[in-house]
């Protein structure tokens, strides 16, 4: 099998996930935070696809190999669907907060403080 090797795909996924995680923690704009979350989700998606492509279980054979690869790809579709729903809801919440307070700084949204 030729093309991009598995470790490169995984390294890219790791880089994207770390970037996303750091972004979620350091940024104060919820829209950017959302974008970072998307980045993390896509890093995971990439990892799923890479494994689906490269690493069928050595225990399986024949049709089971195909099914195993399909399982990874289906998971990606699920994640995309869930992420889309999440963005829809999340952006709605952000809009509502903006209407209420005229700003969307995450650090200002600490009304649930104990």
């Amino acid at each position: 099998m030729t093309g991009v090797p598995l470790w490169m795909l995984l390294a890219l996924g790791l880089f994207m996930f770390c970037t996303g995680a750091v972004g979620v923690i350091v940024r104060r704009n919820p829209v950017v935070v959302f974008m970072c979350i998307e980045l993390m989700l896509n890093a995971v998606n990439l990892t799923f696809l890479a494994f689906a492509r490269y690493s069928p279980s050595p225990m399986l054979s024949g049709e089971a190999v195909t099914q195993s690869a399909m399982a990874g790809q289906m998971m990606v579709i699920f994640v995309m669907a869930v992420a889309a729903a999440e963005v829809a809801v999340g952006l709605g919440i952000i809009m509502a907060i903006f209407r209420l307070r005229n700003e969307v700084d995450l650090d200002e949204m600490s009304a649930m403080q104990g």
Partner: protein
Amino acid sequence: MDIELSSIWWVIGLPLIGFLIQALCGKIVVDALGPKLGKKIMGTLAVLPIAIAFIIGVLITVKLTGWDAGRRDFVLTLFDWITLKSLHVPFEVLIDPLSMTMVLIITGIGALIHLYATGYMSEEKEYTRFFCYLNLFIAFMLVLVLGNNLVMLFIGWEGVGLCSYLLIGFWYKDLANAKAANKAFIVNRIGDWGMTLGMFLLVAFMAGNLDKLAEPGPRWLSYDVIFPNAIALLKDSPGVATAIALLLFVGAMGKSAQFPLYIWLPDAMAGPTPVSALIHAATMVTAGVFLLNRVHVIFEASPVASAFVACIGAFTALFAALIAFGQTDIKKVLAYSTVSQLGFMFIGVGAGGYWTGMFHVTTHAFFKALLFLGAGAVIHAMAHNQDMRNYGRLIKYLPITGATMIVGWLAIAGIAIPYSGEGAYGFAGFYSKEMILGVALGGHFAEWQGQYVAVWAGWLGLFVALLTALYMTRMTWLTFFGKEERWRLAPAEGHAHHDEHAHAHDHHGHDAHGHDHGDDPHRFFYTDEELERRAQAEGHEHHHDLTPEHTPREVYPSMWFPLVVLAILSLIGGYVLYKGELFKNWLYPEGLSLLKPEMVHEHPAGVPLLWLSIAAGMGGVIAGIAWYFRGLPRAEGWDLSKWSVFRRSAGNQFGFDHAMVEAGVDGGGAMARGLWRVFDVGVIDGVVNGVARTTRGFGKLLRLLQTGFVRSYALLMLVGGVALLGYFLYLMNRGVGGP
């Protein structure tokens, strides 16, 4: 005539049936037949059960005398009451000389007093309620004396306490009576506290030695199992014997009105006079002496406890006799003389002469019931005025009452005529008192730190015998003799002072608090509004119908007949029972269990007891007559300010009752407040609030974690996720490297 022993159940059952008849049908019958006929029928129905019970008791006693002296005890079981695996408490009676003696006193004297009460209470509206309580009392008293285990004794003990309470407060609408009833009940509770502890200790002691019983079995709370075994068991543990004996004696102190728990008995005179005669003189108050006779094995094992009993008895006898000198109410004099005579009984019991205590119980039942009933007749004839200062020369108007009461007076004073040889013919009280003094003076049993305490108690008792003769002469002379008919002399003045005087006595000087309602300073019984409403309803009407023109009239035959019977008993009863040591051989035919006859006997060496007791009785009577021959001395008259310091303080019980009640009520209040402060506020509230405070403290700490910053939560989640991942990796690695 032969009689089945099982008919003993009728002795308990008949008064109980009588109680049920009075309680269930009494009001209906009286309402239906009119007060006159209805009361006659219900009165008869009240007397009959007791009289029949007495006849059955006599027949059983006669049967008992036919048996061998040492084998006169018989246990009858009605049903199994409490059944546990290792403990059976049957409902059973013990027929033996002691219980039958008490049965005869209770039913015999009880029947006479019931008969008397049908006359005495004839104008009472709630006639059947009275007899309902009275019959119930007899039933409980019989359970007390006949029961064959401590549990039944306790039922009877509490039952008679209840009836005593109900009867003292029979005229409960009068606040003083309700208070007296409460006082009696509460003071008795103090005694019962000791008694229950003593019983628990005895039960625990028995339970701890179950394997050492002669015949192991589940009935180990019955007397016939406890006492034969206790002789052997208690010998090895005198400390336990002393503890049990002292605690049981606390119960006896409460019921038998010994110092310092005597304070309820004088107040108990608030009840109708037949009640005072039956419950507070003849039967219930002697339950303490009966108890000590019943458990005499335990007291025999403890000379220290016996010495304590003798001491308390002697002091009570002296103290009450002194108080009696300051009393003007005829029933109060008799009440204190009862307390004093009970003290005598405990001198005898403490000295180890248990039969002497019972002998005095018997003779005292005769003459004290007689005196009380006679006093009741006098009170009845004198328009319910109880102040002796308003009496005088009543023998002219009340010949039968007077004659019988004179017999009672001479009996309690212990008058006897010596005859050639070493004996004396005397009234009933003489023999029993002499026996008690003899046992005490010759006592080599009641020992405390090497001292034979009973001997000192005996000498004190001899002095009290003199005092007894003196104050009883005072009472009799002021009532029946003298030249003046004092209710004709200064009634207006007399009545005014009488009220004042009674107030000072009956209300324990609570007036000193300066409350508006001297009657009820602590508001135990009525609120202010209730008191006001009562005052308005009743007005200031006092029922003093004793006018100068009053002519006392001799009482009904139903009232003087019991007096005559009791007078005959007081006259010859003592002699009959004393002769040939009949009473001792009846109660203790084989002597005591532990004590040897030479330790307890009635003939002290080197003391001319016979002459001393005759001198005490005669001397008291003669001195009393000399003192009161000229009528009421000014120093005891209506004007309290002319009284001597001794008499005034005696009339006030030397301040003891006042101090006790104050200490009880105010001290109890202070203690309760202290407990509330320490225990309620400190411990209970402390625990509750402490739990709350601790929880809040934790909450405060945890709250610091909730910053509200989304980004820090995200960071924590990341850290947590990484940590979890790391942990799984660690587990996987270990799993790979493991076996």
